[in-house]
Structure formats: structure tokens, C-alpha cells
């Protein structure tokens, strides 16, 4: 059970406080309700590029990192298709430094041309390092547009191509800031060796004077239900063949999300999972195989990915995956197997409570989903899932006409 207090400033900034006096540290986590899905199709990769620019100095503070390191703090950030999340860890005694830094960059950035130029280069190197110069690195650049035809999830957070990043202009940066970076679109979680009164006073001092800004009204094209089997084969400079099968699944907030997450656990969590046991160990068709959910706010993906052994044909390997997937729809799983994945989920939640930063991130994430307290009901939601629900969801999802298959063939 993660306890917290919650208040909203007059400018709309939502603040959550989680007191944890077992540590001498504090964390400040700020989630902005903007991700790659909010980008224009002509300017992809922008939310992530913008995240880099948030470290390039703000209106009153020329450099961001240095003053934080000077008080013993560390920080980082990440961008996903749904959100952009910034976090600081620092000695609790120096909490105010985090408020000073974060409030100034919520107020306004410095918008320096030099920072934009450098970060464009840094992000292009990131693009190369993670997506282009790695075997299979471009998988999301290929798979997303197969699964999504309407929804902006069709591009990865890094963007569709290097050119979109190369052409980013300072006017675009300013417009993006104005549209998304204001108190109404943010959630702040402060955790650790702090008190709610202290956080309230600091929030009123540093954040309340920031103008509320405009509320961003999200209106994204939703992805229609898939009606056709989709398939692509690429021959690439990769050492081994690789099979990706992506299925459309309901959004993170859908009541069936928990059943689907357990389906991915049954398939692939741990050495006792079905795909590993059957296809790696018993039938010896794959060297490795995994299944996972993207957990997206809008319609998501369940992805099955496996590398067949060198003497196994793609057809045989693919048929074996389908046999396992269809099996789940044919008969309800046993109580024992269901209990196993539920136990694993339950203990994972207990372990997660050991990490302060994880707790803070989760509170912000669930607040955005509707209520920070949902975090405390996660385990319960998983425990409620029945064998029948799992069977129904497997039948609904694992259909050819709901699948997008991407095959990498190793260039010989």
C-alpha cells in the first residue's frame, strides 16, 4: 500500500506527496501529458527531441544540470509514445533546488539556437546508435506502420526518419512548449524524506506563480479494428532470421487489459512459460522467444518475437507459434498455471515498493490514467482475472486478420 496526499494548485498543477522517512533522499518526478502520439505526422520525433532541449537552460537558469549536481542530485528523463517524464533524485535537505530548477523550466525555456543545434546532432546520433547501427534496430520503424494505419502510434518516439529531426526549427520548439508544457498538462510527485506541508509551501512558492497556460485538447484519430492479415519480409544484414507478430489489443484503461497482460506472462514470463518451454526446450525450434504488451494509452500491441534456430524454416517456426497461441483459445488454463502468473505479479508488486523512484513514477502515471490510488488496486485487478476471461481474450486477439507479421531474413 503506497500512501500519499494530493492537492492541486490554482494554475491546475496536480501535486502528489508520498512520505517515506526510511531514506535520507527525495525524488521529484514531473510527468508531462505529451508523447510522440501528439506530434504532427510531418514532424515526428519532436516530443523526444524536446525532452533533450529541456536540459538546455531555462529562462532564468542558464544551465540545468550543474546546479543540481552541485547539491548532490541526479536526474534523467524519458519519452514514450504517450508521456514525457522527468525525474530528480537528491538529498532531501536540498529539496528546494529541485523546485527552483523544475519550476523555471516549466515557466519558460531559454530557447537557445546553440542548444537546438547540438541536441539535433545528439538525437541523430541516438537514432543511429539505437535504431540504425544495430541488428534488428529498425524493427519499430517497420512494425508500427504495419499495425497502425490511422493512429499516430504508427511512428516510434525517435521519429520516422533522421530528416524530421534535422529540420526542427526554434519556432517549432517554442510552439511545442506553449502547447504542452504548462501546469495544466503536468503532474508532479514528490517523495522521500519530505512532509506534505513542506511540499505544499514549496509548490506554492515556486510553481503557483506560473501561468496556467492553455489546456491541450487531445483529439487523435483512433485506429479502426484490423480486418486483414498484414505481412512484410525484409532481407537485412542481420545474423539470424527473426519473426515478429504484433496483434492489436485494447488500451491500458480497458477492463480486459489485465487478462491480456497475464496472457503475455503465461506465454513468456520466466523459464516455465509456455513459449520457452515448448518452443525452445521441447521442440527445439527457437533460440529465444518473447511476448509482451506495449501497455499503450490508446489501442496497444501484443508482440510475439522469436529467433528460429538456423536449421528451422520460417514456415515451421511461424506455425509453431500459432499453435501455441491458438491453444490458449481452445481450453481454459488450469488453476495452477493461473495461480502461478498471479503469484508472480503479486510478488513483483511487493518488490516494486522497495524502490522510491519507481513508486513516484507509478503514482504520476496512475494519476494521469485517472487516479493515483489505482496503483494500490493493481494487484487486486490482476487477481480478479478468470481462466474464462483469458480464454475469451486469447480467442479475440490471436486471429490472423488481427496480426501483423514482420520477418527478418538474414542476408547470406
Amino acid at each position: 500500500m503506497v500512501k500519499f496526499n494530493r492537492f492541486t494548485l490554482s494554475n491546475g498543477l496536480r501535486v502528489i506527496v508520498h512520505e517515506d522517512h526510511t531514506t535520507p533522499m527525495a525524488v521529484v518526478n514531473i510527468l508531462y501529458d505529451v508523447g510522440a502520439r501528439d506530434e504532427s505526422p510531418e514532424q515526428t520525433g519532436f516530443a523526444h527531441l524536446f525532452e533533450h532541449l529541456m536540459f538546455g537552460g531555462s529562462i532564468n537558469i542558464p544551465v540545468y544540470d550543474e546546479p543540481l549536481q552541485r547539491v548532490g542530485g541526479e536526474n534523467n528523463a524519458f519519452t514514450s509514445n504517450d508521456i514525457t517524464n522527468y525525474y530528480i533524485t537528491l538529498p532531501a535537505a536540498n529539496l528546494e533546488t529541485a523546485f527552483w530548477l523544475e519550476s523555471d523550466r516549466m515557466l519558460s525555456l531559454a530557447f537557445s539556437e546553440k542548444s537546438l543545434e547540438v541536441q539535433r546532432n545528439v538525437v541523430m546520433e541516438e537514432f543511429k546508435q539505437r535504431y540504425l547501427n544495430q541488428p534488428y534496430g529498425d524493427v519499430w520503424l517497420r512494425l508500427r506502420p504495419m499495425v497502425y494505419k490511422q493512429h499516430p502510434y504508427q511512428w516510434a518516439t525517435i521519429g520516422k526518419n533522421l530528416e524530421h529531426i534535422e529540420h526542427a526549427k526554434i519556432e517549432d520548439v517554442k510552439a511545442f512548449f506553449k502547447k504542452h508544457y504548462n501546469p495544466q498538462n503536468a503532474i508532479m510527485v514528490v517523495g522521500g524524506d519530505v512532509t506534505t506541508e513542506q511540499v505544499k509551501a514549496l509548490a506554492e512558492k515556486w510553481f503557483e506563480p506560473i501561468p496556467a497556460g492553455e489546456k491541450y485538447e487531445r483529439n487523435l484519430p483512433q485506429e479502426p479494428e484490423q480486418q486483414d492479415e498484414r505481412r512484410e519480409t525484409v532481407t537485412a544484414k542481420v545474423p539470424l532470421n527473426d519473426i515478429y507478430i504484433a496483434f492489436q489489443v485494447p488500451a491500458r484503461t480497458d477492463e480486459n487489459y489485465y487478462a491480456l497482460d497475464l496472457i503475455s506472462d503465461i506465454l513468456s514470463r520466466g523459464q516455465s512459460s509456455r513459449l520457452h518451454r515448448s518452443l525452445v526446450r521441447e521442440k527445439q525450434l527457437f533460440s529465444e522467444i518473447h511476448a509482451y504488451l506495449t501497455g499503450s494509452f490508446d489501442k496497444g500491441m501484443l508482440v510475439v518475437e522469436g529467433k528460429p534456430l538456423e536449421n528451422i524454416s520460417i514456415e515451421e517456426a511461424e506455425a509453431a507459434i500459432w499453435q501455441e497461441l491458438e491453444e490458449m483459445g481452445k481450453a481454459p488454463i488450469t488453476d495452477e498455471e493461473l495461480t502461478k502468473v498471479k503469484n508472480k505479479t503479486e510478488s513483483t508488486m511487493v518488490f516494486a515498493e522497495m524502490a522510491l523512484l519507481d513508486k513516484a513514477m507509478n503514482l504520476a502515471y496512475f494519476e494521469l490514467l485517472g487516479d493515483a490510488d489505482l496503483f494500490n488496486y493493481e494487484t487486486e485487478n490482476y487477481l480478479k482475472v478468470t481462466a474464462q476471461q483469458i480464454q475469451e481474450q486469447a480467442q479475440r486477439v490471436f486471429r490472423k486478420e488481427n496480426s501483423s507479421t514482420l520477418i527478418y531474413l538474414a542476408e547470406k
Partner: protein
Amino acid sequence: MTLNRTLAPEFQAIDHISLIEPEHTQLPNGCKVYWFNSGDQELLRMEWIFGNLRFDSAKPLLNMAVNTMLTEGTSALSATQIADKIDYYGAFLQAEYGYDNSQLTLYSLNRHLGHTLPVIKDILTDSQFPEKELDTYIRNQQQKLQVSLQKNDILARRAFNRAVYGDSIYGLSADAVHYQQLKRADMLAHFKQMYQPANCTLVIAGKADEEALKQIIDTFSDWENAADPADVSQQLIESATEHFYFTEKPDALQSAIRMGLPMVNRTHPDFPALQVLNTVLGGYFGSRLMANIREDKGYTYGIGSGISSLKYGSAFFIATEVGADVCRNAVDEIEKEINLLKTEPISEEELSLVRNYMLGSLLGSLENVFSHADKFKNVYFSGLNYDYYTRYTEIVKSVTAEELLALANHYWNFDEFYKVIVGKY
């Protein structure tokens, strides 16, 4: 009163860092047990840690393969049954191979110890390395290796370790043929010699109350040693004579760079001050290498440096992946930054920032009881005690710019660096 946002709030330097020290005992069979009892959650992390056996270059993979395959079956339990039991009780079991020690780690809720501990006992006393599982292991590792060998940073790390650590357990780069040489009989013999109680340190962290300790100790009290003790010595390390290694990848968009040289390890009196010097150069986000090569030039997504402290050796290294067209410029800039630290004293402003950053980082790394156990392992397996941390924090607070300048001159000579480039140059 208007808020002056240009002024940084007052802050406090970190004065004191308190570390939790473990309690300990030794079982009659020689197994040393250390425990940290703290935390609100009813869970435990238990690590059975064993010294690796002396490296045999004719059978180089044994330490790694035996460790990785610990979960692959005993006389009583198949690999699948082990996985089933562990997963059913919501536990996590990991075999981790390290350069000096290898370990088996179990995360378990206290209430399931009665089901999870016997599995560990079975593994540590009766692993069988079944032929079928060994074949699967070899085949899958060889496939994974093919993917790794396509990654420039991995190739650079392999070449660097080979050059600095030579033909030793640290310099080893597994090749497909090494996997082919693995034999079940060798693995069984290796297992029996290495995984015995006298070569084991058990570190427990979490809700290590009396009841849990009794359960653990009772389970392992009749664990017996083999006839011969484990030989955990290693031969002297001989670095290569060749200092420059370039592997060309004509299609590379980026080049991986790794360079550095052998260094003193944690037991040396200079080590804490060298950590300060390393942090200034490339040990944090605001470091000189990051500020210059990423934040000013935009050549890379990331660059860093570090000191890997091992029992029988140590290395200082710088690692990055840079745009293929700017690889030479990046190497030149690295050289400049090294030489600058040898010619100009670090300003007090920069040094005080690094001092605070390092102390904050140490404080922040103590997130929970597991982190306290990790701090213990750092000193314990280096043959040190908690005085190390007292000395470390003292030196971080007090080392002078002149001392750091002298250290840079003593330890760093760019011409003597081993330099590895994979990509274009």
C-alpha cells in the same frame, strides 16, 4: 515579495553517510553468512556467492557455463520443474557470472521460504548439467553470440579486455568454438570443486528475522564440502604489447571507441582520489567528456569513463559510440581532455561540484536494504572493511586540485593507452 528565480536556493553539503553493517556467522561447513535485517516488506534477497576457479585457457568457459546452467536440472528436478516451482511461489532465481565470483540469487517472499529454499539446496548440492540441456545451451549461446558480434560496442569491449587483461579470466572473449568444447564431465567436476560451502559466502538482505535465518541455516547446515578445497587463485595478468586495434566496418554509421589502460584497484590508497579524477573526466552527466563531445560537439549520444576494480587487476577505460565521420575528431578531443587534466589544476568550483555530486550519488545509491548489502559486497570481496567508506568520503571531501593533477600525470599517458576502434577511422 517577488521571487528571484535567478538565485539558487541555499543548500547543505552532505556531511555524513551512515551505512548499515551486517551481522554474521559461519556454519560448521565453512559457509560464511552475512545478513541485513531491515525493511517493511516481507521479502528477502539471498545471494550464494562463490569464488571462480582458476582459469584454464584450454577450457575457458567452464566458470561461466557452469554458473549459467545451475538452473538446468538436478537428479530430482528437471529444468522445467525448477522453473515451475520458483515461478509458482512468485520467486525470482538468477544465476550471475562475474569476473571474480559467480552467484545464485533468490528473491523470495518470507512466507514461501519453505518451498523455495529446498530448490536452491538441491541445485547447489546436486546439479546435473543434463546432456540435452547442455546441447540446447550451446546452440542458443552460439546463436546469441552471432547477434552480439554484430554490435560494434561489444566488439570493442572484447578487443579491449583481451588487450588489457591478456589470456586470463578477465580477458576472455567467448567464441563459438569454445562453446563446442564444453563437456558434461568437465562441468560436473568444476561444479563439485567450486560450489562447496567452504567457497561460499551467503549474503541475506530484507526481512532477515530470527525465523527466516533459522529456516535458511537449517536448510544448509548438512551441506558438505568436497574432498579438495576450491582453487580460486588466478595467474598474473599480462597485457598485450600491441596498443592499437582497428576493426573496419565499411557500412558503419557509428564507430565504437574504447580506450584506457591497466589501473590500481580499490585496495590501493590512490583509488578514491582516482575516482574523483575519473568523475571529473567522464564519470557523470556533467563530465568534461560529455560537456565537450556530446553537449558541445554533438558527436555522440553518450560518452563515459570508469574504473573497473577487480580482485587481480583493474582497468581505467573511456567508451563511446560516435558518428563514423567524426571518429578521429572524437579521439583528438578525448586526448585533449586527458592532457588538460595533466596540465591545468581543476578549478575549485568544478571540484566542489564533483565532491557534492559524488557524495550525493553515494547517499542516493542507498535506496533500500539491498543497496546496503551491495555496499558491503564491494568492500568485502576486495578484502577491505567499512573503513574504506570512511576514507573514501574523507578523500572525496578533501582531495586537492594539485593532488589530482599529480595523479593524472602519474597514471595517464595517452600514448600508452590501449585504443580500440570498431567502425570507420
